[in-house]
């Protein structure tokens, strides 16, 4: 049972990340690979912050700032130099590997013994309960903040930028700036997840971000399929379905591991799982996912 609780905790840690990816992939139509780097960046900044005795919330803020900076860089390379978003993301991700290594000073760092963000409230005796409570609180804050933002005038302009650039430019919006804001926001959320995950697993590893964008993508696609299937149009339920997607995805992975899949094959399993999820709507004649 604890195994599945851990899976749910892990899924909630990924909450900000999948909302961030939903923003860049589904709302902005930009496949943002920066994610792999900014996730680790969030974790690394957290490690450096906590080991230097910074308060957990300040550390979290700094981590998100770092993520925002990375996302901003990708957007500027993409818009300013007119380089394909995919390539811009890969460039920044690769550069971030070195940045992370320099910041951390070594390739991994255990965080046990430092006060982390999950212990902050200390309402329960069991660590898992505390962690779960803090994460649920975070996810609720995330939901409210993002629902508000995406429904606001700024959010409409953001969504319109991903939809029809000529239209929103004709309404006086600088789409270049919107893309910078959007990718900065999305990567700040990704870094938030990196920070949470580092504190949950109690260590930071320079390679922890590899393939994270794929895990996130799987969750976003589960959410998106449900959103299309149920014809959801309002923003708050959309975000809820994306969060539902990440929990489903992590439980599926946990199920696979529980069923005896070798832990070394985790990334392979993840990829195959995402492939199945991506392919499912295309072969969904029986399930009528395709019906319009």
């Amino acid at each position, binding site marked *: 049972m604890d195994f599945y609780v851990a899976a749910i905790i892990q899924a909630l840690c990924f909450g900000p990340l999948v909302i961030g990816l939903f923003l860049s992939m589904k709302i902005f139509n930009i496949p943002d690979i920066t994610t792999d780097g900014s996730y680790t960046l969030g974790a690394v900044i957290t490690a450096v912050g906590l080991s230097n005795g910074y308060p957990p919330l300040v550390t979290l803020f700094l981590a998100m700032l770092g993520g925002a900076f990375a996302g901003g860089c990708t957007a500027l390379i993409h818009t300013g130099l007119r380089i394909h978003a995919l390539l811009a993301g890969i460039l920044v991700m690769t550069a971030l590997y070195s940045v992370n290594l320099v910041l951390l000073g070594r390739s991994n760092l255990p965080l046990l013994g430092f006060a982390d963000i999950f212990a902050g409230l200390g309402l329960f005796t069991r660590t898992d309960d505390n962690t779960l409570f803090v994460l649920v609180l975070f996810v609720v804050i995330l939901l409210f903040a993002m629902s508000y933002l995406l429904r606001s005038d700024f*959010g409409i302009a953001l969504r*319109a930028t991903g*939809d029809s650039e*000529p*239209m*929103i430019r*004709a*309404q*006086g919006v*600088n789409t270049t700036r919107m893309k910078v804001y959007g990718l900065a926001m999305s990567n700040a959320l990704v870094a938030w997840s990196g920070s949470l995950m580092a504190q949950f697993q109690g260590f930071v590893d320079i390679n922890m971000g590899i393939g994270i964008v794929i895990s996130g993508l799987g969750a976003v696609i589960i959410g998106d399929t449900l959103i299309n299937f149920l014809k959801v149009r309002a923003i708050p339920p959309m975000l809820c379905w994306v969060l539902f997607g990440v929990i489903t995805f992590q439980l599926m992975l946990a199920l696979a591991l529980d069923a005896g899949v070798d832990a070394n094959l985790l990334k392979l399993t993840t990829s195959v799982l995402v492939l199945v999820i991506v392919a499912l709507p295309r072969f969904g004649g029986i399930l009528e996912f395709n019906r319009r």
Partner: protein
Amino acid sequence: MLQLQHITKIFNTGKATEVTAVQDVTLQLEDGSYTVLIGANGSGKSTLLNLIAGTAYPDRGKMLLGAQEIQRLPDYRRSQWIARVFQNPLTGTAASLSILDNFRMAALRKSPKLARLGVDGTFRKLVAEKVATLEMGLEHKLAQPMGTLSGGQRQALTLLMTVMAGVDVLLLDEPSAALDPRSAREVMEIANRIIRDHKLTALLVTHNIGEALHYGTRLIQMETGRVIRDFDAVAKSALDHAEVVSWFDYY
């Protein structure tokens, strides 16, 4: 008043494919005038429209709106005065956004889009009233995504969106070209009404000679990047269809 002074636009400068799309065009569009621009494909009409809208910058020449020079302002800055309806009905609106959200952006054409909730009951009522004037029944479908509407409906809404925030100039880039004859007529009538009611300075590009003669207070023909014919309201009303068509048979 919109003034173009010696506007020239050359594409692919210095290459074998160099083409002068607009050549030394000087033009004055009076306030409240409705100018129709015709010309063969490649004559420079669309480029001229893009230069005015700001999606392309002229290589030479000045462009004045009132007293302000605008030839170097990007399109999203000019949009506070200059609105545009595109040939493709899908371009002028954001498909995944609701009608209401699209109108919200149009209403904020001149103002920054801040992180506050602007789509409230009052705004919904305002939009419903405006949309009701189209008599298409869309006022009951404000929460629907734009993408679910027909081309004619989207083009009509795009037109309505241009006057949500008091612009001066309206550019119409073959707004009815992608529509069936009935929708085309409806959209052109709506455009005509909006231009008249809001006293807009309008510029219509069209290939439809019937439209060109029926609407507007001035007719201009472009050829190889130059204005070659220019008729005012009186002279325009004396033109007949066959005569205008014959302008295109210059081979």
